[in-house]
């Protein structure tokens, strides 16, 4: 098993872990965290799969760099929406989900 493949497998594990957290946790901050873990897993898969041969592929590297910045800004927006929701009705969960 090459190092690249180990990264990719770790990425798949993180993705699954994040997906589990996204579904089972009702609290929005936990959901946002879980979603970020899923995203990090995806980045690891992208970078890992491309360098299984031992050679670094700059295209997925650039793509992941782009993805990280987008993920950071989207996370900030999500956090602010969550805070607005909390300010509006004192809850940090989506309608229909119980308090975690």
């Amino acid at each position, binding site marked *: 098993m090459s190092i690249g*493949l180990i990264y*990719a*497998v770790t990425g*798949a*594990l993180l*993705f*699954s*872990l994040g*997906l*589990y957290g996204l*579904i*089972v946790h009702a609290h929005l901050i936990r959901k946002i965290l879980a979603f970020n873990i899923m995203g990090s897993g995806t980045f690891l*898969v992208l970078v890992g*799969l*491309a*360098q*299984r*041969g031992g*050679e*670094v*592929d*700059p*295209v997925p*590297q*650039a*793509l992941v*760099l*782009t993805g990280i*910045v*987008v993920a*950071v*800004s*989207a996370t*900030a*927006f999500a*956090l*602010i*929406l969550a*805070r*607005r929701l*909390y*300010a509006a009705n*004192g809850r940090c969960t989506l309608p229909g989900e119980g308090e975690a």
Partner: protein
Amino acid sequence: MTRVLVGMLVVALGALLIWTMLGLPAPSGRVPALVAAHLNESGVAHDVTAVLLNFRGYDTLLEIGVLLLAVLGVLAVRLAAADTGGTLPPPPGALLRAFTNLVVPLMVLVAGYLLWAGAHRPGGAFQAGAVLAAAGVLLRLSGRLPALLPPRFWLRAGLLLGFAVFLAVALGVTVAGDSLLEYPPAQAGAWITLIEATLTVSIGLILVSLFVGAPAPPGEAGSRGGDA
């Protein structure tokens, strides 16, 4: 009960993903070879920067667009709220103040270095912008940076600068050449430097605004609640 079911489904999905990855054919190496072959036409000497700003410049243009959308969303949510007064961070300790004094000039220097280094080694506008933003967060935490809200003209212009310059260059080379973001090889380096320098400023400002622009928690507006 739901947790067990979800857990089982997620484990099955993870196993399927890993099993699929184990069976994939080895990467062909065609794309890295193409990048290496055309690196000298890109205007920069580092392959990731060449992909980001030249070969796949379209992605980066959309990326700064997404950043701008995120910050517009944050400002819109913030301005729609009544609490535009801004919250003050907690009073900084002496250590934080001294540390900020020491570190912020160095961070600006590092950002400049990263921007310059991007042309031939790992670095570039996004890393430099992130370091600038971290300096801004430190300034905010130590009480040096005002709430910035509602944004004045220069802040708005700074937020927009990177995207506007990138878009203008993209349109200019499209009109002059034959496809979007296809720089003439002779001037590619200069265009990329211009785009990266303006991107750095805008990314730093956007990330700081995302941090500073958070609405105050209820009951803490105008008091000493931290902005997160």
